[in-house]
C-alpha cells in the first residue's frame, strides 16, 4: 500500500530529525573521557575570554605544547568575547553542565555555580602546586575556606591621569584626600578641561566610585558585613553616596557621558587617550584600551590610588579590583587540573605577563613586567593592606547589578544616596 510506505518513510525522517536534535544537544558540555579503541583520549573543553591579541595566540601555543607532551590529551579551545561568554555559560549551565575549564571572576557568580554543584573543589590540588599563588589573587575564588578557581591575572582600580593636563590646570601632585581631589576637579574645570571621563551607559565604571568611597568611609569590614547581613542600610554607605553626589554636582564628566560606552571611539577610554578628559577611574587594563580606542599617552599617563576620605574608617592603601581566573567543571577529566597547573606555572605566567596583558599571580613572575605603568599598579598592589573584589563580582549577580544600576541613577541625579542603599538592600534581601 503506497500510503503505508509513505507514512513509514515520513516516520523514519521524523525519527532521524529527532535523534539528530538529541545528539546535538549534549555535545556541548561533557567532552570528557572518550574511549577510542585501545588508546584512551581525553578531551578538555576550554572556554576563555582572551579572544583577541595578545593572549589568544599565547594560550593557543600553551595548549598545543601540553598536547605534545601528553599525546592522549586533546584540548578544544573556545575563545569567546567577555559579555557573550556570560550569556553562553548561563545557557549551558542551565542544562546542569559546565565546560571542563572556564573563565571565572570568582565572588558571587562562582558561589552560585558552587552551590549548583557545577565546579570542582581545587583546594587540595592547588596546595600541592610548586609555584605558590599570591594569597591576594586567590582570595576572590575562595568560598567557605575552599578554593574553587585559580587566577591568571590580578589588578586594581585607580585613577589614570593625564600629567600634562594636570600641569596645565596648575596641579603639582596627585591628590591624597577626597577634599583635595574635589579641589583638583574644580581647578581642571576652571582651566577649561573636562576633569573626568565616565562611561555612564556601561554602569560598571560608575560603581567603582561608590565602591571605593564606601571602602574609604566605611572600611572593608562594613562591605563584608553588608554581604553577610544582606543590609546596606549603613550610615557610612549613605555618606559615601553623598560624597559621590558632591563630585557629580561639580559636573566633572564629559558631554553626553550618560550615553557613553567604555571602549568605543567616543567612549570613556578614548576621551582620556585623546587628551579630551584629564582622568578616569579604571583598572590595570586602562592604558591598553586607551591605545586601542584612541592613542597611547605615553609618559604623560600617570596612576594614583583612590584618595583617602578624611575621618573615614578605610585607608588609601586598601585596593579595589579583581582579575581573571579559571574554574574546573565538576565532571572534568583529571587532566584538566594538570593543564591548569601547567598554564599557571612560573614560566608560563612570565610568558603571559611579558605580553603586557596580565599582572602576575604567582610569586617569582614579577620581574617579567616590562611596562612601567603596569609596574606602578603591581607596586601599589604589592603594598596593599587590604583587598576588595569588584562589587558586581563579589556579591550575587542580582545584587551586583543593583549596585551598578543604583549608582548610575545616583550619578544621573534621579536617586538620592539614601535611595541607593535602600534599593541595594531590597535586592539583597530578596536573593
Amino acid at each position, binding site marked *: 500500500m503506497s500510503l503505508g510506505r509513505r507514512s513509514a518513510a515520513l*516516520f523514519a525522517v*521524523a525519527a532521524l530529525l529527532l535523534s539528530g536534535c538529541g545528539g546535538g544537544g549534549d555535545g556541548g558540555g561533557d567532552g570528557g573521557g572518550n574511549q577510542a579503541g585501545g588508546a584512551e583520549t581525553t578531551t578538555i573543553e576550554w572556554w576563555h575570554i582572551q579572544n583577541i591579541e595578545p593572549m589568544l595566540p599565547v594560550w593557543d601555543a600553551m595548549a598545543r605544547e601540553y598536547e605534545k607532551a601528553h599525546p592522549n590529551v586533546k584540548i578544544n579551545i573556545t575563545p569567546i568575547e567577555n559579555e557573550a561568554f556570560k*550569556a553562553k555559560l548561563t545557557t549551558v549551565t542551565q542544562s*546542569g553542565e559546565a565546560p571542563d575549564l572556564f573563565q571565572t571572576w570568582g565572588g558571587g557568580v562562582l558561589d552560585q555555580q558552587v552551590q549548583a554543584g557545577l565546579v570542582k573543589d581545587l583546594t587540595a590540588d592547588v596546595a600541592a602546586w610548586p609555584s605558590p599563588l599570591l594569597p591576594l589573587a586567590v582570595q576572590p575564588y575562595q568560598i567557605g575556606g575552599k578554593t574553587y578557581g585559580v587566577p591568571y591575572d590580578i589588578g586594581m582600580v585607580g585613577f589614570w591621569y593625564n600629567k600634562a593636563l594636570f600641569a596645565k590646570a596648575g596641579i603639582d601632585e596627585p591628590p591624597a584626600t577626597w577634599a583635595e581631589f574635589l579641589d583638583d576637579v574644580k581647578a581642571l574645570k576652571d582651566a577649561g578641561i573636562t576633569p573626568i571621563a565616565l562611561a*555612564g551607559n556601561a554602569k560598571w565604571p560608575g560603581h567603582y566610585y561608590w565602591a571605593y568611597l564606601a571602602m574609604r568611609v566605611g572600611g572593608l569590614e562594613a562591605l563584608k558585613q553588608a554581604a553577610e547581613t544582606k543590609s546596606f542600610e549603613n550610615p557610612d554607605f549613605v555618606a559615601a553616596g553623598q560624597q559621590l553626589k558632591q563630585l557629580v554636582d561639580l559636573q566633572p564628566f564629559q558631554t*553626553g557621558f550618560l550615553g557613553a560606552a567604555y571602549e568605543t*571611539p567616543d567612549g570613556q577610554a578614548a576621551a582620556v587617550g585623546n587628551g579630551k578628559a584629564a582622568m578616569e577611574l579604571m583598572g590595570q587594563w586602562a592604558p591598553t584600551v586607551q591605545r586601542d580606542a584612541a592613542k597611547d599617552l605615553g609618559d604623560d599617563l600617570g596612576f594614583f590610588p583612590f584618595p583617602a576620605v578624611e575621618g573615614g574608617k578605610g585607608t588609601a592603601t586598601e585596593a579595589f579590583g579583581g582579575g581573571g581566573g579559571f574554574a574546573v567543571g565538576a565532571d572534568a577529566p583529571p587532566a584538566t587540573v594538570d593543564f591548569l597547573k601547567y598554564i599557571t606555572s612560573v614560566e608560563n605566567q612570565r610568558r603571559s605577563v611579558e605580553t603586557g596583558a596580565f599582572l602576575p599571580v604567582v610569586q617569582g613572575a614579577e620581574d617579567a613586567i616590562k611596562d612601567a605603568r603596569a609596574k606602578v599598579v603591581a607596586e601599589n598592589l604589592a603594598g596593599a593592606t587590604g583587598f576588595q573584589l569588584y562589587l558586581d563580582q563579589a556579591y550575587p549577580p542580582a545584587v551586583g*547589578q*543593583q549596585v551598578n544600576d543604583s549608582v548610575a541613577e545616583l550619578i544621573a541625579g534621579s536617586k538620592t544616596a539614601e535611595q541607593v542603599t535602600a534599593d541595594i538592600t531590597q535586592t539583597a534581601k530578596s536573593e
Partner: protein
Amino acid sequence: MDTMTRLDGATEPREAGRRAGDRPARRFRLRAWATIAAFLLPALVLFCLLVVAPILLALYASLFKWNGFGVLPTDFIGLDNFTRLFEDEIFLGDLWRGLLLIVLSVGVQLPLALGIALLLNQPMRGRAVYRLLFFAPYVVSEVIAAVLFTMVFSPEQGLANRILTAIGLEGLTSTWLADPSTVMYTLFIVMTWKYFGFYMIIFLAGRQAIPSEVTEAAAIDGANTWQIFRHVTLPLLGPTIRIGVFLSVIGTIQLFDLVWVLTGGGPIHTSETLAVTMFQYGFARYQVGYASAISVVMFIISLVFALGYQRWVMRRDIEGAITGMKDHR
C-alpha cells in the same frame, strides 16, 4: 482557531448525520486523516519541541525563584514573580515606553510610509532607484543599523550634531541617546529609518493591486485628488494597512536588538523595552524565574493583541481567506 473548526467540517453534526451510514466514504475519510496526520507529524513534532515546549517551560519557570543553574527549578513561589512585576518601576516603565513607541509607529511611521508609497506610485523618472533607496535600510541588519546610529548620534563627533551646526541650527543639537529626555525619540527616529521601507513596500504592493479603472472612474465623476485618496484608495488599501498596523505593533512589543546595541536600555533604563528588561534579569542578574515571568507577560500581551486584533479588526480580511479555502476543498 476559526480555521481549525471550519477545516474539520466533517464532524459538524449536520454533515455527520447525513453521512453516518456511508461506509466507503468513512473509510476514505479515515485514510485521508491518516495521510494528514503522517504529513503533519514531523512539522507538528518540531513545532511542539521548538515553540510549544519553550513556552510551557517559561510558564513553569515563571512560578519559581530560580537563578538558572541546575536542570529544573525547585523553589516554588507561586505568582510572586508576577506580583513583583507590578511593583517594578522598570517593568511598568517598559509598558509605557512600549505604548509610546506603538503610538508613534502607528501615528507617524506608517502614515509616512503610506505617503511615500503613494508618491512612488506616481510615474516619475528614477522611480525604481527611489524605491530601492527607501527600502535599503530594511535590508541592513539591526546590529549594523544600530552601530551606525550610535556614531551618527555621538554627542561630540556625531554626524547629526555636525550637520545641525553646519547649517546654523546649533540650537537643535542634542546629546540624543545620552539624554533620558530625548533617548526615546532618537530611538524612534532610528526605528523609522530602519522599518518604514518595509511598510512602504507592502503599501506600494497594495496600491498597485488597485485597478486604475477605479481611480479613473472616480476622476471622471469629478472627484479631486484628495477625494480619490480618501474615498477610493484608502478604503481599498484597508486590508494592507490593517496588516501593517498588526506587524508594527507586534514588532514593537518584541523590540530588542536595535535597542540593545543602540543604548543597552540606558541611560538609567529610560529606553528599556520588555525584551531588554527580560534579558537583563535573565542574563545579567541571573533571575531566570523572574525573567521568565516577564517573557510570559510579553507573550500574553502579544497573544491577546493578536487574537483581539484578528477577531475585531481583521475579521473581514481573514473571513475572505477562509471562505476561499472552503471553496477550494
